[in-house]
């Protein structure tokens, strides 16, 4: 493996937390085994890389962009990395869909926001201005692949890195990583070619397909909030009256949250074939109401709180059809 054919790998983070970058660093502490295949040329969080390091003739083969776009600097960074990178991957729910920072699009007040100086004055430097709206990466530039999750599970991250960086010389231990991926992606990885452009490194069905809970009969009697009483043993959470977003969420995580007794909150984004996750949840929940009285149903619906913030918890900026139009330039 000579140096020339080593892929150049970059990781950049916008606004979010550092969980995705730590997830990459910690893949069963095997990230060091990537060194035969790749040179990490730009990773501000770990290597302290500067933008000058990417000057001119340094192209990037694969760039993982993490975090939502909230400031003017991050927008510029997204455009610049799109130009420089052969393959741009939206890694994590924030980059892919907007993530938790996207919830700020629902807030009414400009709370805690600093009135930043647009330019340096002679006395103090400027900070990047905060845009009026949080956006996901795909709303700013074209994205080649998506790895959803908050943070993405390590097996899917590893599968993506195998597919995109290691190419034909993919390492062993792949079988478990490709197990949950759709056929066209897993075949591409094992054959050593790039998966189809736009692929999402996750399953195609809803989380219910991999959730370990027992599904019996779906009847919503009253909605309950997670701090109220519900059985923690084995039965589907939606059936017990909790609002669980598994039905409108892409699978691939293996149902981690429901396994611990917590309802899914949709960090993998919407599955194939769903137009709008909120509409899907409305359909799923209300189709299970038993009552035939309009009055009873109104009373039951009144007990639900914060539908938008729950149904679109991680996907508000990009997958909520009625709030996702990016601003005009």
């Amino acid at each position, binding site marked *: 493996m000579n140096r020339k054919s080593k892929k150049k790998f970059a990781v950049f983070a916008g606004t979010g937390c550092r969980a995705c970058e730590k997830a990459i660093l910690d893949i069963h502490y095997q990230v060091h085994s990537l060194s035969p295949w790749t040179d990490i040329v730009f990773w501000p969080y770990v290597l302290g890389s500067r933008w000058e390091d990417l000057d001119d003739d340094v192209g990037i083969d694969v760039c993982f962009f993490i975090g939502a776009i909230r400031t003017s600097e991050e927008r510029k960074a997204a455009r610049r990395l799109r130009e420089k990178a052969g393959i741009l991957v939206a890694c994590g729910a924030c980059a892919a869909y907007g993530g938790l920072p996207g919830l700020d699009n629902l807030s009414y007040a400009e709370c805690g926001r600093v009135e930043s100086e647009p330019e340096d004055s002679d006395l103090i430097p400027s900070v990047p201005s905060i845009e009026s709206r949080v956006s996901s990466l795909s709303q700013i530039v074209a994205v080649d692949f998506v790895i959803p999750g908050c943070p993405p599970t390590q097996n899917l991250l590893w599968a993506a890195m195998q597919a995109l960086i290691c190419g034909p010389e993919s390492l062993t231990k792949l079988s478990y990583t490709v197990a949950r991926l759709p056929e066209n992606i897993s075949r591409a990885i094992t054959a050593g070619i790039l998966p189809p452009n736009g692929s999402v490194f996750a399953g195609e069905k809803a989380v219910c397909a991999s959730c370990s809970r027992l599904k019996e009969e779906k009847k919503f009697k009253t909605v309950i909030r997670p701090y109220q009483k519900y059985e923690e043993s084995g039965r589907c959470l939606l059936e017990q009256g909790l609002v669980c977003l598994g039905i409108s969420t892409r699978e691939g995580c293996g149902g981690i949250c429901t396994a611990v007794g917590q309802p899914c909150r949709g960090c993998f984004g919407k599955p194939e074939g769903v137009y709008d996750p909120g*509409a899907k949840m409305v359909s799923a929940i209300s189709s299970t*109401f038993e009552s035939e009285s309009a009055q009873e149903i109104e009373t039951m619906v009144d007990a639900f709180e914060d539908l938008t913030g729950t149904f679109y918890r991680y996907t508000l900026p990009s997958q909520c059809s009625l*709030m996702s139009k990016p601003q005009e330039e």
Partner: protein
Amino acid sequence: MSAFEPKIITFLCNWCSYVAADAAGVSRFMQQTNVRVIRVFCSGMVDPSYVIKAFDGGADGVLVGGCFPGDCHYISGNIKAMRRAPLLAKLLNELGVEKERFRLEWIAASDSALYARVVNEMCDTIRRLGPFTMRRKAG
């Protein structure tokens, strides 16, 4: 600059409300022309995502017309529509769609006058409310 004319999408069930709409036309009831009709076989087949897609696509109002409870050609299809409507209306309201913009109405096949009245009411109300502008951000 011409005055705003709303676009209202209606999903009318084949057996009752569509017949009423047709009859309203034949009987020459005065109806405003802002309505675009989509015929469906039952109000119960109107998925909430159709309604959201309509607003996403530029509609200013959506009307779903079905048979009276008990008269559904498919027995309980309209009950399914009735079960969905409140939760959908609540979500739409949170997303900035005023409650006057989305209506579920029971319109019997013989009641073409009711159809015309509902349509005209909706057009007037929404014309007053103005165009539906999608919020890019709250506030």
